[in-house]
């Protein structure tokens, strides 16, 4: 198990290197001059050159990439924002927890509700509850989240005035963003749980459990669910990744000061250091989540557990 973990953590290094290199290449070919954007239209050619030299923008791609990796790894320094002149690590330290909170809150909500709805739908297949839930899930998958976010604000903040429409400090402020961001994932997890459970419920070992005289609740939660969980975990992992991306839109709709908004503003302003930092953090979050998913697999599926040893 320790060897498995060690191997997986070492595997994070090439992934992060690959992601950052890809990002550097993309930024390199993207049109737009940060120097002109930062210094403005009236800046002299000299000051532009000075800015480029200062930020190594006049160097070749590989040199810039090498410098970035060196500074990040050796000095834990990802540079300063062109716009605010504040260190990137500080900016991210301020905003990343917000985004992580938004995404984790949403994935917890999506998983708990998705599992519950999916299990009930599978147990009561073709019932009214099942049919209505499946229609709502279909709506949940097909509604764009910025649209859903605006609708929710209109209903619950403007008309009913139950919760505030922006910010992310109190629970009441977090409720709408969590619901908005989790809607799609919740729908997907509900549908996945339903179909996975339906498959397992008909299996022979569930019949064996019933033949033992086991109660229906234990048959479903112990015998069926643990087997049905294996594909559901995959989906939850993938969805968590999507949520980190989706957080950018949600943060815009609800004016949440998260890393998503920071990154979008930075891309518009060609604020390369911020973009690089944000993408590196998101990539690392992805890798860590995938590792957690693999550990969950091993916990659920004894076949994998014996292989991990």
């Amino acid at each position, binding site marked *: 198990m320790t060897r498995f973990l060690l191997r997986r953590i070492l595997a994070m290094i090439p992934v992060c290197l690959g992601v950052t290199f890809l990002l550097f290449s993309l930024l390199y070919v993207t049109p737009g001059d940060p120097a002109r954007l930062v210094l403005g239209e009236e800046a002299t050619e000299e000051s532009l050159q000075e800015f480029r030299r200062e930020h190594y923008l006049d160097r070749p791609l590989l040199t810039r990439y090498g410098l970035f990796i060196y500074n990040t790894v050796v000095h834990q320094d990802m540079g300063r924002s062109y716009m605010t002149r504040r260190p990137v690590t500080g900016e991210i330290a301020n905003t990343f927890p917000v985004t992580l909170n938004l995404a984790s809150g949403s994935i917890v909500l999506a998983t708990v509700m998705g599992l519950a709805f999916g299990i009930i739908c599978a147990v009561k297949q073709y019932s009214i509850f099942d049919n209505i839930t499946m229609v709502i899930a279909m709506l949940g998958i097909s509604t764009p989240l910025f649209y859903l976010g605006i609708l929710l604000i209109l209903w619950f903040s403007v008309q009913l005035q139950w919760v505030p429409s922006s910010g992310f400090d109190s629970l009441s402020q977090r409720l709408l963003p969590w619901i908005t961001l989790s809607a799609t994932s919740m729908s997907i997890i509900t549908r996945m749980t339903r179909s996975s459970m339906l498959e397992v419920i008909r299996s022979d*070992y569930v019949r064996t*459990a019933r033949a033992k*005289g*086991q109660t229906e609740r234990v048959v479903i939660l112990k015998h069926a669910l*643990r087997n049905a969980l294996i594909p559901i975990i995959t989906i939850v992992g993938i969805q968590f990744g999507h949520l980190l991306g989706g957080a950018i839109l949600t943060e815009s709709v609800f004016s949440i000061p998260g890393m998503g908004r920071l990154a979008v503003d930075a891309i518009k302003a060609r604020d390369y250091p911020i973009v690089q930092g944000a993408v590196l953090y998101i990539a690392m979050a992805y890798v860590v989540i995938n590792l957690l998913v693999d550990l969950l697999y091993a916990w659920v599926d*004894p076949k994998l557990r*014996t292989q991990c040893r």
Partner: protein
Amino acid sequence: MDQQREHILDIRDLRVQYHTDTGLVKAVEGLNLSLARGETLGLVGETGAGKTTTALAIMQLIASPPGRIAGGSIFFEGEDMLAKSEEEKRHIRGGKIAMIFQDPMTSLNPVLSVQEQIAEMIRLHQKVTDKEALEKARDMLGLVGLRPERGPDYPHQFSGGMKQRVVIAIALACSPRLLIADEPTTALDVTIQAQILELMQQLKQHFNTATILISHDLGVVAQLCDSVAIMYAGRILEKADAKSLYANPQHPYTQGLFNSIPDMTKNVTRLNTIAGLPPDPTELPPGCCFAPRCAHASGACSEGSPRMVEYKPGHFVACSRMNGNGGGALGPAEERGQAHG
């Protein structure tokens, strides 16, 4: 009432139906069957005859929907199973009636250790601590010929024959009064089959459990069973003690089955078969369900189902020739007793 007391199981006029898209499938239609304490009955029939459905009906495990018990009664130890509450049924399932399923590869839960799967059965029906249950589970593993130390292992770490041993250990963990073995050796290769049959023979003596052995293999049944019931299209066509049935099969279907067993001493180019196919369970023929394939069928065969007739003491046949309507061309029908059950 007397008969109910002496019989551990008494099924009367059982009808089980499945609602499907193509129509109403009458899987079991008017089945009568009884089983004495300690008796081993072989339930023989081809695929789709309703053997497994009968077993699931006894266990009260017919999946509903699409299935339902449409009529009849199942008396277990003199009490009507159909009248019991779900709670009472749960105590009987596993505790008093246990079942071994056909495919050991899929009937064990892949994410639970085998000792946990055996211990679960023990915890459900006996007042024991978790530790005692696990201990007893490991004892059961020893009893079915597996090393008790393998208890914490998972099903994927066992071979097919070993898994079937685990399934047998689960079924027998609470010393049930009735064991239903649904084709326990069909999914196994021949050498393992022999081992499992021998194990079942030993355990049958050890626990003195009444057993219903469901099979389509007349050879397997001959090895283990005291009596044999031949099932076809949801009904019992013939029931007798094994000796009488193997020596002197009376029903044309049973005779056809025996004729279909290849004779190793003769050099034949074609194997004997029973002409035709089993009837469509959504559209059973009126009268005797075997009549369309029967060489001895007469007009009387399509009028009403033939009653069970006691051809010899303990040897029952449901054929209109025995009822005195047909020709009686095959074999004497000396002792025509009254209908059984």
